[in-house]
C-alpha cells in the first residue's frame, strides 16, 4: 500500500480530479479516490481535510453547504478556474517527474528486490 508521504503533493490532484466531473463532499471524495486508485491507495482523513483547507485557502476549490439530509449538513466542494489550472499543472508536473524517475529505475534490480 502506498503511503501519503510517497504521494505528497498529489493528494490535491486526486481531489481536484474527482471534482472535475461534479461537486462532492468529503466522504464521497475519499471513496472515489479509493475506487479510482484501484485499492492501491486510501487517503487518510487528516490528509484529506488538510488538503481541503489548503485548496480552499488558495482559491482552488470553493465550499458550500448542501441541503440538509437526515439532519446532516454536508460541506460540498466545487472546483474553481484556478483549481482546474492547478490540476493541469499537476498533470504536467507528474509527466516530467515520471520521465525523470523512470530513468533511475533498473529493471534488473527491481526483479531482484522482490524476494
Amino acid at each position, binding site marked *: 500500500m502506498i503511503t*501519503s508521504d510517497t504521494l505528497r503533493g498529489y493528494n490535491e490532484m486526486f481531489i481536484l480530479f474527482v471534482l472535475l466531473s461534479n461537486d462532492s*463532499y*468529503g*466522504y464521497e471524495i*475519499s471513496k472515489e479516490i479509493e475506487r479510482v486508485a484501484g485499492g492501491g491507495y*486510501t487517503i*487518510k*482523513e*487528516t*490528509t*484529506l*481535510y*488538510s488538503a*481541503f*483547507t*489548503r485548496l480552499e485557502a488558495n482559491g482552488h476549490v470553493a465550499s458550500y453547504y448542501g441541503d440538509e439530509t437526515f439532519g*446532516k449538513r*454536508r*460541506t460540498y466542494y466545487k472546483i474553481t478556474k484556478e483549481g482546474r489550472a492547478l490540476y493541469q499543472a499537476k498533470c504536467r508536473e507528474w509527466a516530467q517527474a515520471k520521465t525523470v524517475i523512470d530513468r533511475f529505475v533498473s529493471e534488473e534490480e527491481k526483479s531482484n528486490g522482490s524476494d
Partner: protein
Amino acid sequence: MDLIKSYIEALFGGLPKTKEVIEMKLNMLEHLEEKYEVLLQEGKSEHEAVGIVLSGVGSVEDLKEELGIRDEIVPEQVTEGLKKEYFDFKRKQGLFTAIAIALFILAPVMVILLDQTGVRGLPIAAFFLCIAAGVALLIYFGIQDDKFKDALNLGKEHQTKGEAWKKDTKYEAASGVLWILTTIVFLLLGFLFGYWHPGWIVFMFAAAIQVLIDYRAKNRN
C-alpha cells in the same frame, strides 16, 4: 461512535480553536460517522468498524503542518529573537555578577585604604557604597532575568520541574545569607576588635563558598 468522537476530540485537542479548525473537525466527524455506518451496513461488527475508521484517520502531524505552522510563524520568530537577546543578556549577567562579587571583596579593602586618610566616616561610607552597588547590580540582573524567563515561559518550565526549581531558589537564598553573614562578621570583627585588617579576609572565604554553592547548584540540575 462515542469512541470515534473522543478520538477526534483528542486529535484536535492541541490545535488552536479557530473557526477553520472547528469547521474541519465537524466535517471530519461527519465523514467518519458516515464511514462507520457504511461499514456496519456491510456487516462489520461495531468493534471492527471503529477499528477500521480510527486506523484510517491519519496523524495529527498532517493537521499541524497545515494549520499549526501557519499559525505559529509569528510567535516562533519572536521567540527566536528573544532567545538571542536572552543569550546576550546571560553573558552580561555573568560579567556583572562577577563585578558585584568584586565590589563585595573591594568593600573592606576600601576601608583599610581609606582608613589611612584619617577622614572620619569615609571608610565606612565607602564600604557601604561598594556593598550597596554590588547588591543593586545583583538585584537588577535578577529581576531582568525573571522577566526574560517569563517572556520565554522558562519560569513555568522551572515550576513544573518542581524539585529542581526549589533547589535553585534554595541555593540563591543560601548565597544571599552567606554574603549578609560575611558582612556582619566583618563589621563585628572591625568595630569590636579593630580587626579591619586582616578581617577583610572573610570576604575571600565567602567568595570561595559562593563558588562552591554555584558549583553544587549547577551539578544538581
